[in-house]
């Protein structure tokens, strides 16, 4: 019998515009590679938006967490538009408000402080992943839209 492994899909903005987009991308990578490698997969946002059926089907059937750099919330909007409401959303600029003296500067190579901030964002995403799995909501949805 095939063993079905529950996973959460993470959709990150690719964010070339602003440093917050780079943070969202790196934080997502940290979750995928270090914090929750066995519980998460990433959904490629450009492919998802371009019409990738595999990506859209996964996001329709399983819980997703969107990670956006800014208030435009492109990942969240795209997920809602093509596959339904995400289980949870994380927005870097919201987390940044908790650190009023901290200013992001780089959208390419992160400074050590920016790397630490990316780790904090990654921990927030990991918490949402745990919530999704603990609540047993990462099971195949039944035609929910």
């Amino acid at each position, binding site marked *: 019998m095939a063993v079905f492994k529950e996973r959460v899909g993470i959709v990150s903005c690719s964010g070339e515009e602003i440093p917050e987009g780079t943070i969202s991308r790196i934080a*997502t990578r940290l979750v995928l*590679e270090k914090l929750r490698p066995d519980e998460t997969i990433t959904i490629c946002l*450009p492919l998802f938006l371009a019409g990738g059926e595999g990506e859209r089907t996964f996001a329709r059937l399983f819980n997703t967490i969107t990670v956006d750099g800014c208030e*435009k919330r492109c990942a969240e909007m795209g997920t809602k538009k093509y596959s339904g409401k995400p289980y949870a959303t994380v927005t870097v600029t919201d987390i940044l408000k908790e650190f009023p003296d901290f200013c992001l500067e780089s959208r390419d190579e992160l400074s050590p402080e920016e790397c630490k901030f990316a780790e904090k964002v990654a921990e927030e995403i990991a918490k949402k992943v745990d919530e999704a799995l603990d609540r047993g909501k990462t099971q195949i949805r039944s035609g929910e839209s």
Partner: protein
Amino acid sequence: MTEIGKVVVVACAGMDKPLGSVARASVFKVVEELRPERVELVCLPPLLAGVGFYAELIKSLPVITVDGCVERCATKLIVKNGGRIRGRILVLDSAKKHNLVPESGSHLGPTGEKLAETIAEEIASEVDKLIQGR
């Protein structure tokens, strides 16, 4: 010369493949180091979300797309949105041509960085040609 002497560059920036990260890194090198005055970077998600002025930009300026893999999402999405594509780069082809492979999506490593630099120079060269009207 193009209307206002600028070119739009769009990278796929895909999260799920290291070559998407190379595409992203290469356009940053063009925008921030090689041709900062000549290039407008367009981020795909806001374009598709209808946020900002990107839709007008890709219709009024020549566009170079940089795709990581054979899905060619950047190219598809620019075409779908009425953009004027004048140059296309596929990172996969460049990786094969130069025999340079990135280590991972989060850490390109020396060969991935070299690949990004090489592609950035190719993009800059395409930008120059388009601006000179060749």
